[in-house]
């Protein structure tokens, strides 16, 4: 990076939105700058990696390629459809009062399945609260995810069972856990990789930038995977940065790349290359998956207050699932029977989730006092005993 190449580069107001509406993937990196030298050495190749256009056309990229069997392609399709269906079912369950909240991944299926399916079993994932698709790839039961949104626990699954860490709500803090974990992998002499998911909003948190520093300094095998879904609740990405986020990495001395986050093939290709990079002892890498949050931030949110239907319409044309379906059809890699089967399977999944959530029991009151410490704590014991006595006073007075 030279001084001039970014001197004063800043996003023209609204540029991202307009570009999105036009279906363009060009970013503000080379838009006109004010009061500073314009960007020189503009990249010769497209700034964003894409292997499947919004229309489903397979294209090539000078650096990233992928060659999947029909089976694998169908697998990705199935993953995305099932994930979307389960996600939609969870949102419905929230409306029915069965969940307290749901954070939908609608629109981000390709970013999650493409990266999730690139991982090895021994790799380790640190998610945010929205990585239902990655969880799916890791074999985490969707019902586990529902537990915390229903409010029966704060997560509660065993991260080591699928090498998929607990959901983390405090924005950005998991990127440091991922970095520390990767430092441990390195100490163990293993060639596993670690992947930390985070959002465009999270890129502003001190913790995320400290994670960049630690990972770079220790050369830790961690991929920072930013799903830039253009929104942090109501704030567009230009409230977090004035240049494309993948460029953040360069300032910390490791490579960053932007990929079309709605293109499952490109995401997989880029993630595979990044995994290879970090496994080979080259230190961390940043992937920015450029995508769009099609739903509300969570079921508590009302996006009509801050964004336009036209944006949504433009992004609907880039839907990750439709795109792959067209490609599968073009390739003759899938027929109606396959699509029907996936549909049927997703009905069954939705049913299982619905029934599973509905029958999920509430924890007992005494569980409040469990698992606060691994080795026990006198105060907890005291409070547990006092509460049990308090509770039994009701039982007594009510005569059962």
């Amino acid at each position, binding site marked *: 990076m030279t001084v001039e190449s970014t001197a004063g580069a800043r996003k023209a107001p609204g540029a991202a939105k307009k570009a999105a509406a036009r279906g363009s993937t060009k970013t503000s990196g080379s838009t006109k700058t004010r009061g500073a030298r314009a960007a020189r050495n503009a990249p010769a190749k497209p700034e964003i990696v894409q292997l499947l256009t919004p229309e489903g056309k397979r294209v090539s990229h000078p650096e990233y390629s992928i060659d999947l069997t029909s089976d694998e392609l169908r697998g990705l399709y199935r993953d995305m459809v099932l994930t979307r269906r389960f996600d939609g079912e969870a949102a419905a369950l929230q409306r029915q009062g069965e969940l307290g909240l749901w954070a939908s991944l609608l629109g981000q299926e390709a970013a999650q399945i493409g990266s999730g399916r690139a991982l090895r079993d021994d790799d380790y994932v640190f998610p945010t609260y929205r990585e239902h698709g990655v969880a799916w790839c890791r074999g985490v039961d969707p019902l586990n995810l529902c537990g915390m949104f229903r409010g029966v*626990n704060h997560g509660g699954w065993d991260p080591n069972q699928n090498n998929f860490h607990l959901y983390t709500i405090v924005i950005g803090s998991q990127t440091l856990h991922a970095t520390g974990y990767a430092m441990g992998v390195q100490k163990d002499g293993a060639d596993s990789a670690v992947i930390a998911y985070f959002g465009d909003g999270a890129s502003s948190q001190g913790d995320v930038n400290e994670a960049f520093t630690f990972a770079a300094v220790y050369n830790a095998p961690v991929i920072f995977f930013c799903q830039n879904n253009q929104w942090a609740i109501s704030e567009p990405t230009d409230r977090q940065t004035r240049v494309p986020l993948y460029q953040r990495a360069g300032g910390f001395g490791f490579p960053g790349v932007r990929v079309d986050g709605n293109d499952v093939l490109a995401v997989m290709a880029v993630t595979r290359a990044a995994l290879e990079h970090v496994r080979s002892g080259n230190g961390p890498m940043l992937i920015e998956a450029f995508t769009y949050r099609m739903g509300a931030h969570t079921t508590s949110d009302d996006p009509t207050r801050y964004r336009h239907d036209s944006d949504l319409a433009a992004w609907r044309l880039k839907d990750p699932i439709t795109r792959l379906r067209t490609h599968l059809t073009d390739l003759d890699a899938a027929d109606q029977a396959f699509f029907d089967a996936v549909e049927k399977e997703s009905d069954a999944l939705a049913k299982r989730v619905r029934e599973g959530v509905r029958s999920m029991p509430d924890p007992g009151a005494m569980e409040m006092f469990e698992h*606060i410490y691994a080795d026990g704590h006198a105060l907890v014991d005291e409070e547990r005993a006092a509460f049990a006595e308090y509770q039994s006073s009701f039982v007594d007075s009510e005569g059962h």
Partner: protein
Amino acid sequence: MTAMPIVKAINASLRTALENDPKVVIMGEDVGKLGGVFRVTDGLQKDFGDDRVIDTPLAESGIIGTAIGLALRGYRPVAEIQFDGFIFPAFDQIVTQLAKMHARSLGKVKLPVVVRVPYGGGIGAVEHHSESPEAYFAHTAGLKVVTPANSADAYWMLQQAIQSDDPVLFFEPKARYYDKGEVNADAIPDPLHAARVVAEGSDLTIATYGPLVKVALEAATAAAEDGHSVEVVDLRSLSPLDFDTLQASVERTGRLVVAHEAPVFLGLGAEIAARITERCFYHLQSPVLRVGGFHAPYPPSRLEDEYLPDLDRVLDAVDRALAY
């Protein structure tokens, strides 16, 4: 006089402040177009512009750190922390900078920064959205900590907090956001740091604040049915804490129960118990009893009704105190 919910009273108070003082600026995550996740800042950016109602990057330390800088330049920032559980990334800026800079400068620098924090449980939320971290700040010299329990206090105490030349942590009882109350914008408000007796009684005092004032009042009513006369003190200010009002009450009643949602261990009740016992040693007919959160992370929402001090738990403490 208009009846409005607390959330509207705060909105009205912010509006008044923006109108009255061009140096007041509002900042935080999603406070602009969205009007905040609770709509507390609804409509303010539209009316006052994004220069005065500022959507910030997603970084709490940055919010408080830049608020300090704005205050140094003569502004009066009102910064929002979206939820109680997200104040911790800003803890260093609050405790080492915001709280100490006035002293560091031997009084030459003033930091009129208000930090608004929706706090407390009972809204069925996921982790980190239901906490009561007020004790951390009350323990910290250089900060003031207040919390209204009704619409009028929400309106007026926020006015006073913004006018104060000291940094004020303004804790808003989010579970009560939609409780309605009268607001008289022409009233002469009580002092910001005065406690208030909100129900008179002679057998026992309940001291509480924020979301539990309502519960304490219900407890007083229920106790009255059992023939016990319970006084309720709404503390309103946690730093400084109005021990004189509380002492006077306990000298009358001889018994004190303190209730808060925050964990009991080192919660405000600990300080109140210690200090009131010292002040009223010969008046107390029972030890000061405390009702509050357990020494546990705030539980998942399906357990919060068990976790939160409710009418029964407050009455249980009242009964135990009266039984001494």
